[in-house]
């Protein structure tokens, strides 16, 4: 068996696997619709606004609700001291209202 045949078939195999993965995604997305629907119901009922990803601080738990200065609210010189703070920056405070 020539090495090039082995290599090309390996690449084609991986390509096919990737294609199947990409092709199967809408299927699994349909499966998860029920879960997303139930989450959506909870969000609507309880009027939630944020994902509960990082629960260390106010501005990381509710980034859209936190005001501009909440990241430095402890005292004037308090640096942002949560690791996830480096990932969650306070939102740009652009006032939509004209």
């Amino acid at each position, binding site marked *: 068996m020539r090495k090039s045949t*082995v290599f090309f078939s390996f690449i084609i195999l991986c390509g096919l696997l990737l294609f199947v993965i990409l092709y199967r995604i809408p299927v699994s997305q349909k499966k*998860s619709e029920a879960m997303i629907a*139930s989450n959506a119901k909870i969000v609507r009922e309880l009027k939630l606004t*944020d*994902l509960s990803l990082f629960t260390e601080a106010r501005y990381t*738990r509710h980034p859209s609700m936190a005001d*501009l200065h909440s990241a430095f609210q402890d005292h004037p010189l308090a640096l942002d001291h949560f690791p996830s703070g480096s990932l969650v920056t306070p939102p740009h405070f652009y006032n939509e209202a004209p």
Partner: protein
Amino acid sequence: MNSSFERHRNIVDFALSSLLRRKAKNLSLLAVYTLIVFVIASIIFFIHALKREAMLVLQNAPDMVVQRLAAGRNDPIPLGYQEKIAAIRGVSGVEPRLWGYYFDAAVGANYTLMASDKQQLEPESVIIGSGVARTRRLAEGDMMAFRAYNGEPTLFQVQSILPYASELVAADLIILSNRDFHALFNFPKGVATDFAVSVRNPRELTTIAAKIVRQFPDTRPILKREILRTYDSIFDWRGGMMIVVVAMAVLSFIIFAWDKATGLSAEERKEIGTLKSIGWETTDVLFLKFWEGSAISLSAFLCGVILAYCHVFFFSASLFEHALKGWAVLYPQFKLTPAVDPYQLAVLFFLTVIPYTVTTIVPSWRAATVEPDAAMRS
């Protein structure tokens, strides 16, 4: 039948056998390369799936949330504002929201407490998120102690637990009745944390927000579009941040590949000299080096992407948990629905295969221009 396809197949044969001959060097190169593709792909897939789920779920967030700011800090909003806001044309409903945070010293976790009267809650009982249940190992009917505003422990009974699947939005959520909320925090009457405003026609939101701000200058309306865009740009920024971190890894890898390619061992140089002396032309040797490079980068790219897909969607990005979790004790366990589109793969291809290929152009050319008669003289 002299076809260039056959020629390339022969060259690929020789390229692969020359790769296998220097197994240690090339396998380490392949391993590092696959690892880098794996990390970048995991980040891109994780963020894209999370962003998509956030968008789908948060579509149902309130149309507008009105907060009151005092000295730049959030401050409870008086219920008096409610009628005036409800009176604005286009507003279909204003519902005050009562919510806050509670630090549970025993476990070191922060919970979000929310008051709601629509959940048929008996007095002294709560509905808790499954994250809370997991952290405190509570089941339905157990008792849960909170330290009230004056330090005395108050007991609540767990009436029910939110479904496991809702951890993404309500892992740390605790729902209690209005009366209990006021009692627990001695929350002043006549005020709410903020208002959730729903409007009849979403296109009116900006004009209504303008009216609210003109009427109550100390308030800050947050539109649903802004909430969604916060997640859209945050994740991009986070994606960008992580990519910048990984870019360092790519850079180090390129230096690794460069010195691998330039550090042509004498043995390799002699071998190429032999090839050139027996009839291989410079372009053939260039193709040889090209195929060597693309064999490694293609297999690394494909393996990296497939491994990343399994990591993010079958093991729900367990490797990233510590990075994302930070110091939070309570981290939601959620299974992301796969969401990958060809655009991301193209970006990933650009970020990994192209720098690698470019770094090997000059060294492979330098290798290819070995003198044919060098083999004669050696």
